[in-house]
């Protein structure tokens, strides 16, 4: 039974890492769109 | 072909002469190497029964750090006097410069190693149980492995923001098989427990592969702009 804890730990760790990375992508997209808007306004 | 080797030799002699004249860099490097050995002596008990098993690793880690510090120095001088730009503009083959730099670094690092080794022998009361002559090819091939890639990555790092830290960041991962070969080979020879033959062949293969790669790509690196 103890061993199954490791199974769930592995699965959770996998998705935590994926979500973290997707989070960084979303943040970077947002920042870029912000910059685009500023450029569009011609500063 | 004649001018290639001529150019290599001329650059090498120039570097050695410059290094010799400004003995500051050399002296501080020597002292640094001594300090590294002493730190290791205090960290890893020399009297322990198993010391012979770990000394191989200690020695090469010490050499690795000394080499990194040395490599960072040698390109810095070129950069200061904008010699690099002069090379880029001249019709001289980039490989000649690379070879000269590598050989110069090789000499420099070998001197450091030659000075650190007796210290290790003294502090750790080393007594080689295996065929001692095999230590020479291991040392030569191992040092070249570190130096050839180190020179290449040092040149790469010149263009980056955190120059000094960039070199070890790039060098260490790539050097892992070579380090394994050097350490395992040295340990095999010191303990006499197994043959270093495979490791010497491994180091030789590593050297051939990466010397070729460095020579092939150095021109591209130098002229990348």
């Amino acid at each position, binding site marked *: 039974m*103890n*061993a*199954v804890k*490791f*199974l769930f*730990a*592995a*699965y959770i*760790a*996998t998705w935590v*890492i*994926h979500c973290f*990375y*997707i989070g960084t*992508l979303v943040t*970077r*997209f947002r920042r*870029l*769109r912000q*910059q*685009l808007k500023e*450029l*569009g306004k*011609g*500063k | 072909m004649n001018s290639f080797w001529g150019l290599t030799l001329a650059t090498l002699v120039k570097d050695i002469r410059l290094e010799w004249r400004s003995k500051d860099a050399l002296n501080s490097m020597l002292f640094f190497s001594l300090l590294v050995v002493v730190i290791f002596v205090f960290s890893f008990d020399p009297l322990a029964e198993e010391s012979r098993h770990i000394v191989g690793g200690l020695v090469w880690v010490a050499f690795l750090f000394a080499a990194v510090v040395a490599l960072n120095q040698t390109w810095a001088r070129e950069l200061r006097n904008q010699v690099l730009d002069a090379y880029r503009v001249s019709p001289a083959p980039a490989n000649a410069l690379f070879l000269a730099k590598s050989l110069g670094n090789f000499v420099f690092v070998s001197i450091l190693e030659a000075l650190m080794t007796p210290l290790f022998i003294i502090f750790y009361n080393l007594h080689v149980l295996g065929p001692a002559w095999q230590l020479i090819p291991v040392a030569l091939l191992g040092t070249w492995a570190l130096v050839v*890639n180190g020179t290449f990555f040092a040149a*790469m790092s010149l*263009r*980056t*923001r*955190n120059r000094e830290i*960039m070199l070890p*960041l*790039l060098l*260490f*991962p*790539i050097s*892992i*098989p*070579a380090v*394994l*070969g050097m350490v*395992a080979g040295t340990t095999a020879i010191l303990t006499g427990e*197994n043959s270093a033959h*495979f*490791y010497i062949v*491994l180091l030789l*293969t*590593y050297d051939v*592969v*990466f010397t070729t*790669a460095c020579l092939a*790509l150095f021109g*591209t*690196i130098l002229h*990348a*702009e």
Partner: protein
Amino acid sequence: MKRLFPILSIITAVLLAYALRQALVVAPTDALQGDVYRIIYYHVPSAWTAFLLFSINFVASIQYLARAKAEKLVKWIVIAIGVAGVIATFLPPVQQQIPAGMRPSAVATTFLMIPAFYLLIGWLFRGEKLDILAVTSAEVGVVFCTIVLVTGPIWARPVWGIWWAPGDIRLTLTLVLWLIYVSYLVLRRFSNSAQTQILAAALAVFGALDVPLVYLSIWFFRTQHPQPVIGGGGSMDPRMWHTLLISWLAFLCFGFLICWSRFRLETLHREVEHAHAMESLIGAEASAKASMPLSRSAK
């Protein structure tokens, strides 16, 4: 094109859920390891995906380096490797080397895939896009590689009793690859835009050359040092194999979506940088008039 992303996302989500169910419920329990072995359905597909992505990076880097001077030469060399490999697998001395389970035709097909893979990437991605592909595959590859390195020890601990076995070739090789590609990403971050691409491509080539040497060095090392007894080996239950492949398909689709996003992010990023540069050269008014081709499809 725009609608494709959400559609694929839904398909991928369904696949991942299906794969998860297969992994946890449908696949039979391992006789030796119990239920813990099910980590394999996340660990191995992530590894295969990571290696695929690193291979893409390697090919893209070579093509980027070769594009100026040696493009045709390298292309012919790669085709020659493929052809030579195919021919070689049908020669008796080489056939003896092939391990028992594999058919020569499978080996030959693999060799044929090498130039096919190379040419496909060269055809789909040209010029600047090759470099964007390189960054994308490196970054997403590192993500998947991290997962392999995290799930590996988590799996090893209950099964072998230790977190890390120094002679474990696969995990150590994965660690070295991870280190090489993290240093690749660090190089990209810390160097200036013009030379970054070439320097990084050169580093990728060095990394690829290093891999077989790492394999050799660890392989020999482990023959000299006692290794933990790792039970298992032997062929896999077909239902497990089936689940493994489904898992891989699901993660491949997922990886593809992430790569697509990252690719678009990088393309957009470069356009913004270009626009900034134009602005400082020409002046704000003039550059606002100049068109920004893909900004409208930035969503």
